[in-house]
Every structure is written in structure tokens, then in C-alpha cells.
């Protein structure tokens, strides 16, 4: 985040605060002796453009992430799931995501799905994430802010989207080659395709830790 961007933000009215809905899962919540909380691994915070919000991640994602020893959380931004709607566009939703990120016990990895990827990209410009994962991004600004603290960035798109202009624009903006997953971009929350996608993300996160 540049100083100029901060000055601008500090002098514009802050979005109206809302009571946000969270869903979270700690490794201890699995009641499995085999699974140890890994204090070195960054926690994960997910968000999605799906109107269900945080609840969408309950089916598979949070448990699966917790199985890898990470604290897993998801947040519903304004207007999603159990979070009341409030004024504000992209910026206000990014604000919700940053506010959620600072409540996570340690420096978190942000995972954004669809429109959530745009919010995560903006949030990463204001908060030093441990990693930024964009899944099938939608409506990401043409020039997303440079992520604070230069975190590793992973872009994952569905096979059907690999040629789409949107995915390529995001890939160019971050200078990364997209990873592809089988299945449709809307169908990432359960099923075989979702498990493959999650495994890819988790192994990327685990590899990043070793570097």
C-alpha cells in the first residue's frame, strides 16, 4: 500500500460498520488425535461471491483446511448470508474482508472465489496477507493494488475459463501463470472437482511455507 493510497483512504468516510457473520473451524474442532494444530502454518480466511457467503464453505472447505493443521475461517461480507446489507461497493466489501482478517489470530492467507477474489485482491493491497489465492476471479479491477509485503499469489481458474479475457488479465496483473481445475467455476464447494481444487491450493500453501 502506498502512502498516497492510505492518505486518500483515511480522508474518505469509512464504510458503515456491519455485524459480520463468520464461520470457522480449528484443527482441534475435528476431535481427531491424528491432526495436530500447526503453529507455523498460516490461518486461512475464505470469501466468495456466492450469496450464501461464509456458509458455502461449511460443506467441505473449512474442515478440509483444518485437517491440514490450519485455522480455517470464512466471512460473509455485507449483503451475504447472515451479514446485513449495507451501503458500499467493492471498497466496502474489501473493508469487511480486512476487518475479518485482523480478527484471525495470526497473519492469514486470503482465498477469494469469484467476486470474492476481487475483494481479496483489494484487501491484499491494505493488509499484509501471508498469501493470496484467487479462484475463478470476477470483476477484479484492471490494475489491482500491489499486495502489501509481497505475498505469494496463486491464481486458479476452471478449465473452461483458461482462455477467458478476465482470467488472463488477472494473470498478467500479478505475473503468475494460472493453475487449472476440472469442473465449473460455480461448483467449487462440493464434489470431486472441489476436492481436487482444495488439494491443489493446500499443497501450494504447504510448499510456500518451506521456501
Amino acid at each position, binding site marked *: *500500500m502506498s502512502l*498516497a493510497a*492510505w492518505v486518500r483512504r483515511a480522508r474518505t468516510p469509512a464504510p458503515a460498520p456491519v455485524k459480520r457473520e463468520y464461520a470457522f473451524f480449528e484443527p482441534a474442532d475435528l476431535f481427531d488425535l491424528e491432526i495436530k494444530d500447526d503453529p507455523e502454518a498460516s490461518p486461512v480466511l475464505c470469501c466468495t461471491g456466492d450469496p450464501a457467503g461464509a456458509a458455502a464453505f461449511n460443506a467441505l472447505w473449512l474442515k478440509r483446511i483444518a485437517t491440514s493443521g490450519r485455522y480455517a475461517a470464512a466471512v460473509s461480507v455485507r449483503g451475504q448470508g447472515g451479514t446485513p446489507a449495507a451501503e458500499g461497493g467493492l471498497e466496502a466489501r474489501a473493508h469487511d474482508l480486512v476487518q475479518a482478517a485482523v480478527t484471525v489470530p*495470526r497473519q492469514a492467507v486470503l482465498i477469494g472465489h469469484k467476486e470474492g477474489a476481487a475483494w481479496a485482491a483489494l484487501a491484499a493491497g491494505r493488509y499484509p496477507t501471508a498469501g493470496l489465492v484467487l479462484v475463478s476471479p470476477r470483476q477484479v479491477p484492471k490494475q489491482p493494488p500491489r499486495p502489501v509485503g509481497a505475498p505469494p499469489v496463486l491464481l486458479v481458474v476452471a478449465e473452461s475459463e483458461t482462455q477467458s479475457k478476465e482470467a488472463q488479465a488477472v494473470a498478467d496483473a500479478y505475473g503468475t501463470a494460472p493453475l487449472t481445475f476440472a469442473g465449473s467455476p460455480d461448483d467449487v464447494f462440493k464434489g470431486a472437482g472441489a476436492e481436487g481444487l482444495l488439494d491443489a491450493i493446500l499443497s501450494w500453501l504447504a510448499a510456500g511455507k518451506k521456501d
Partner: protein
Amino acid sequence: MQEYSSQAAYDRGEAVCVIGAGASGLIAVKNLRENGFEVDCYERDTVLGGLWNPQNQHSPLYPNTHLVTSRSQTEIPDFPMPDDWPDYPSAAQMLAYLTSYAKHFGLSEHIWYGSEISHVEPVDGSRFEVVVKPAAGNAARRLRYAAVIIATGHHWSPNLPSYPGLDQFRGSVLHSSQLKDPSRLRGKHVLVVGGGNSGADIACEAAVNAASCVHSVRRGSWHLPKYLGGEPSDYALARLASRPKFLRRFLTDRLLKGPAALAARMGVAAEGRPLEEEPVRNGRYMEHVGDGSIQRRGEVARFDGFDVAFADGTEMRPDLVVLATGYRPKFTSVDPKLLGIEGDSPYPKLYARMFSPHKETLAVAGLVEPGVGVLPIVHWQTHAIAHWLLVRKSDPERAANFRVQVRSEAEQDTARPAGSSPRHQLAVDAEQYLASLGRIIDTLEQEPAK
């Protein structure tokens, strides 16, 4: 050299030493870590949070301390405060905030508590030898660091005025930092000396708790309520900075018309243009002056037995005198010359208010009073310092150019007329200082360090 456990200093290589684990120290550690530095932070107390932690033995907190700048102008830029907090969080909330910052970024593992730095000595060119004296145990350790960042703050060494007869005064005298418990004011006739933020806040506490409260101020100062036009006043004023220059003065005057008229009515005369120097930010003070629970007097002339005489000839007999006379910056471990401290003035002369004029790898974080929240300023300062250390390592030519630029920034800064009180030596114009910091950061970030 008997006091050292071993003659050879332990070399920490490229690691950076940060002195102090208060707000500035924590931000410095986090920003250096983010830029890939190894950091050792030494804190002489056993707790983090510096001035915001009441368990710190040098804590300046007085009863009911709250921020005087609003949340949005005070939070660390990349770690916002929870948005359901009040506009002006309390000292306890600030401590909770700093604690969660340290926990979130895993800073505690880099902090050595109970370790006072007794001496910092420049050795072979740009490196520093640091002597660490643990509070418990006896053996001092010597370590060598590539750079030292001093983040000891300037709110721990009380500035005690000298009045004739003060040492023979028969009532009790406390500095504002010793007044931990508001019950000490209850039922007393209280005299508060000092017209800064702490003086006004303590006078307001005394107005509701004490039997009577007299507030002695030496000179007028601008008083700003905590809200202006339905917005936190620092935010409302900062927003005007984005307006064109010819409108700005007009709009500022319009915004300050009400508070200025009230101050004039209460006999709180202020000199100079509004906001030329750090105003007193307190919304309740004027109301207490208005309902007579705070009586304003001029300067104290002398203390005499149980009595206090004022310069205007009046006298009073206080049970308790609170000296809210502020703090002096104090550097215990570093040679004052390295920070440009000369003569009797305790105030250092630094390049861009952070770089030592003599040593390239010595910097001070948080030694400014910008009139807005200090935390974001410290964030950008330490951001600049971390980038400077990177550039210095990788590209000596650019580093030399940068030194020249910083020196010219420093000259522009001193060209500004200094505040009329010694207290305002650390004051900077937030707008100008941020612009100068922005130029410094832009130069340092221009091309990525190779």
C-alpha cells in the same frame, strides 16, 4: 571491562536492533521483518505496549486516558482497529490493539523483555555494538548489529518545572504520570498545572471528582472539541486538506468559528493562526470552565508553605498539586552527538525526523508530534527505514544520492519557524511531513533493490 561477561561481542550479522517494544518499536519490528530483516527488540520493562500499558513502570497514563485523535487517523495503516470500536478508543483498548498486533504478526518471539540497553557504540564503520543489561541476573551481553533503531518514545521522562519554594511545599505534589487512580482527587482542592492535553484531561477529571479545581496555564492555546460538524475533528480537518488551497483557509475558519468563539468567551485566548501548533483536544473542558467547576488562573509564581501564589497576585491553598507539565525526550544509551543533540536542548536534530545525521544505520522512530495519530506516521517512517537499509545494502550509488535528498528535506524542514514553546520542538505539520515521507519512500522504492 570487568562488568562484561565476555570480551568478545556476539556478532548478529545483518540483524537489526530495535530499542523499545512500545507502539513504535512493535511497528518497527513488523516492518523490518516484512522486508526480510532479522530483528532483536529489547524492552527494559517486562511488558509490551510501552506507554499504553499501565503495568509499565514508566507509563504516563492518567485516570481515564483516551486517544485524542480519532480511530481512523490513529490506526496502523495495514492493521485497522475493529470498526465497531468507538471513535476515540480508551487506553485499555489501545493496549488490546497493540497486543493483538504483536500476536497477529508473531512479534513477541523477537522481543527480549527485561533487557535494558546500557550502551550503543558505533564500531567498524556502520555497525553497532550494543550492551544489553538484563534486569534480572548480572551478566551484561555484548552484541553487534548492522543497524540500530531507537523507538524509546518521548513520554517517559517527566518534565518537572522548578518554581520557587516547590521543594518546601507542604501539600502533596504529583506529576500527571503518578496520578494513577482518580480516587486520589476525590474531595480534594486540586491545582492542575499545565495547559496541554494531559492538563486539560486531568482538570476535567478533577472537575467531576474533586472538591474544587484550579487550572493554571502559562499561555493560551487552541482548544479543539473532539467533534466538529458531526465528524471527529481531526478527520474533518484532514479532509479539508484535499480542497484547493484558496478554499482551505476559508473552510477551516468556518469549521473553527464555533469553538473559537467559545474559547474567547471562556477567556481562553489563543495566539496565532488556528492549528499552527498542536491544539488541546478536549470537548468537555470548555463546559467545565463554563459551569465553574474549573477555574482558570495564570502562571504559578511561587509555592509558600501550604499556599500557592499566582503571577496575578491571587493565592490558593491546594491539597493536591498535579503537574501536568509533560515529558522531555531522553536518550540514555546513545551518544547524544550521534542524534544531533547539542547544547542544553534535549531535542535531537535528525534528518527527516528519523535518520541520524552522523551514522547511516542509526535511526529514531516515533519522535514526532504530527498533530494526527502518531502510529501511521511511525508505520511510514519504519517502512522508509527498512527500505533504506535494503537500498544501502544493495546499491551504494543510489544510497549516496538518497542521503543528499534526505539532507535537503531536512533543510526544508528546519526552514519552518519553530513553535513558540519548547514543548513544540517535536511538532511537525502532518501534511508537509507526510508529503516529505512520501517523497522519501518513492525514491527508495523507485527501482526494486537488486
